[in-house]
Every structure is written in structure tokens, then in C-alpha cells.
């Protein structure tokens, strides 16, 4: 495992590279973390998966996006565009490091960034999405809501959020749950959707649920259809486990780790 700083257009990004163990380099994955506290809560699961990938012959590069984790810059300096550029930069690094097939692996809102980056890269890269956020405006709404937690129970949360949105529209940074959010990040996030990138893209879509999921959830079915109509292939798997990016205590989802390896190793049926 190597930790290093990758020079970016502005500043540098903290990266961790797990080389594939053994002689067989099956592929390389670039991991894109989710937004704010979800990044921190999911660290353990991601570390466990990265280790499992390495043991299975896949290299993994983790990058802290601008203003996040140990990368340079404050969160207040982060813009959506800078995050998309971080992903394309990291892909280039991985391509130089290994000629094995490159994947982008995203968790939650990381998938929204991944999709935009994939659109800018050729050829079509295979994607591994964990519990993808379908809609950046919902991610933003759920994040802004944190500011109004105290007001929520008195039914006056709306005023707090309206005030935040007004500030953002006026070009001012806002503070939510200890994070300073710039308008350029909020607007990019708000516009982001999980739209299919290039035709021919392979998407492995995995989710966890505390209950057994037998049917395709309607929102997933709609997205899957949209991607297939755009000439992409989508395989969806749901396993039992906690929403580890969200739970109050740090949790693990071991079934997700094995299902993820299977998703990459199992050939897609024609």
C-alpha cells in the first residue's frame, strides 16, 4: 500500500494505491468517495474492499478530492468541476501505472462525479457503483437539511434551508454541519444526474438493504432502462447489510464485499 500526493492543477491530492497482489493484474479501480460525512463513515468498508480487490488481483487507487480528507485546499475551495477534473487526473495516473482494464468505482454521490468524468474519457470505462445517488439535487437537499436539524422538530426547518439557498444564489458560501459549501460546488451537485455516459458502458450496480430485496426497486428499474436504451449494460445486485455510509455507528457489510468481487469477475451474459 502506497500513500502519496498527486499534483493537480491547483494543489495536490492525497492518494492511496493498493497494488494487485500476485502475478495476475485483472484490472485497476479508481475509487471516488461520497459527500461530506458519508466519506468518513464509509472509510472502513472501502478499506476492506480495497484489500479484497488487491488479493483478487485488482489494483485500487483512492483519491481524496479537492478540499476533502488529506488533500490540499479547504472544502470551501472545492467546486464540482474541480472534483470531475480530479477523477480524470487520477484515471490518467492509473492508466500510466497499469495497462490492465480501468474501472471507476463510486459510492453514493461519488457515482455522480464518476459519470461526468466517464463522459469526458475515451473509450467507455466500466463502472462499479455502490448505492449510487441518482440525483444531485436530492443529495444537496439532504445535506442542507442538516443545518435545520434543531428547527426540524418545531416545524420551522423550511426557513433555515430557504435562507441557505438564498445565500448560495447570491454567491455566498454557506456553513452546514461544519462544512463550508461554495456556490460552485452546490450548483454542480444540484445539476448532476446519473445519466449514462458512452454507449457500450458496462455498469455493475450494487446496493445494500437491511431487508431482502427480491424485485428491482422502481427508481432502479427506471435508471436501468434509461441506461440500456442508451446502449449500456447494467447488472443490479442487492445484498443484505447496513447503510454503512449513513449509520450512526461505523458498520460493515461483508456480503457486499463478496458480491462486488463476483460482479467484476463474473462475465456479463450476452
Amino acid at each position, binding site marked *: 500500500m502506497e500513500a502519496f500526493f498527486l499534483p493537480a492543477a491547483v494543489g495536490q491530492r492525497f492518494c492511496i494505491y493498493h497494488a494487485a497482489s500476485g502475478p495476475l493484474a485483472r484490472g485497476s479501480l479508481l475509487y471516488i468517495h461520497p459527500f461530506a460525512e458519508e466519506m468518513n463513515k464509509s472509510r472502513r468498508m472501502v478499506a476492506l474492499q480495497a484489500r479484497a480487490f488487491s488479493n483478487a488481483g485488482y489494483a485500487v487507487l483512492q483519491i481524496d478530492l479537492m478540499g476533502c480528507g488529506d488533500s490540499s485546499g479547504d472544502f470551501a475551495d472545492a467546486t464540482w468541476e474541480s472534483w470531475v477534473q480530479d477523477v480524470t487526473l487520477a484515471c490518467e495516473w492509473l492508466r500510466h501505472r497499469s495497462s490492465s482494464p480501468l474501472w471507476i468505482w463510486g459510492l453514493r454521490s461519488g457515482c455522480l462525479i464518476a459519470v461526468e468524468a466517464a463522459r469526458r474519457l475515451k473509450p467507455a470505462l466500466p463502472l462499479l457503483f455502490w448505492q449510487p445517488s441518482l440525483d444531485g439535487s436530492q443529495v444537496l437537499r439532504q445535506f442542507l437539511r442538516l443545518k435545520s436539524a434543531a428547527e426540524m422538530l418545531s416545524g420551522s426547518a423550511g426557513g433555515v434551508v430557504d435562507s441557505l439557498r438564498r445565500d448560495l444564489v447570491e454567491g455566498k458560501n454557506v456553513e452546514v454541519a461544519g462544512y463550508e459549501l461554495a456556490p460552485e460546488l452546490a450548483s454542480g451537485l444540484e445539476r448532476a444526474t446519473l445519466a449514462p455516459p458512452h454507449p457500450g458502458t458496462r455498469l455493475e450496480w450494487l446496493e445494500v438493504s*437491511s431487508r431482502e430485496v427480491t424485485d428491482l426497486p422502481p427508481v432502479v428499474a427506471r435508471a436501468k432502462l434509461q441506461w440500456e436504451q442508451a446502449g449500456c449494460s447494467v447488472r443490479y445486485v442487492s445484498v443484505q447489510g447496513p447503510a454503512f455510509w449513513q449509520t450512526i455507528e461505523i458498520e460493515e457489510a461483508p456480503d457486499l464485499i463478496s458480491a462486488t468481487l463476483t460482479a467484476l469477475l463474473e462475465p456479463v451474459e450476452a
Partner: protein
Amino acid sequence: MDHMTQVLGILDEVLGLNGRAAAYTKESPLLGAVPELDSMAVVSLITAVEDRFGIVVGDDEIDAATFGTVGSFVDFVERKLSM
């Protein structure tokens, strides 16, 4: 799985109750009775039901009464689902 069972599962998981929610009934009090249910946990619960049920909760749609009992919370979710 019915909505009540799903909501109990979400309560248990988000609040980290380790199975305690399985014993809850519609009358079981939540706010003020479950120590894990603070304002931040309320926000997490709303996000969780939005994600799991595919509903959108407006910022002014909930108040303390929504989380009075398990029943009031389930009723809220079902009202949103029927919209």
C-alpha cells in the same frame, strides 16, 4: 414486507438499536423515549426513508408530532407514499 416492518427496520438500523425496534408497536413512543433519537438522528431518519421509499420530504413537512410514536411516523410515511 409491510410498511410498519420496513420502518421498524429503518429505525433499528439508523439509530443503532441492535434489534430493540423489533419489539416496538404502533403505540411505542419515540421522541423523548428513545435516547438515540436526537435532532441529528431525525435528519438521518428522514434521509433514510426518502432513499428507501423513494419519497421526497419537504423541509417544513415534519415536526415533533411526526416522531411522537412509531404509529405517527409510519402514518407519515404512508401518507407520503400515497401522494
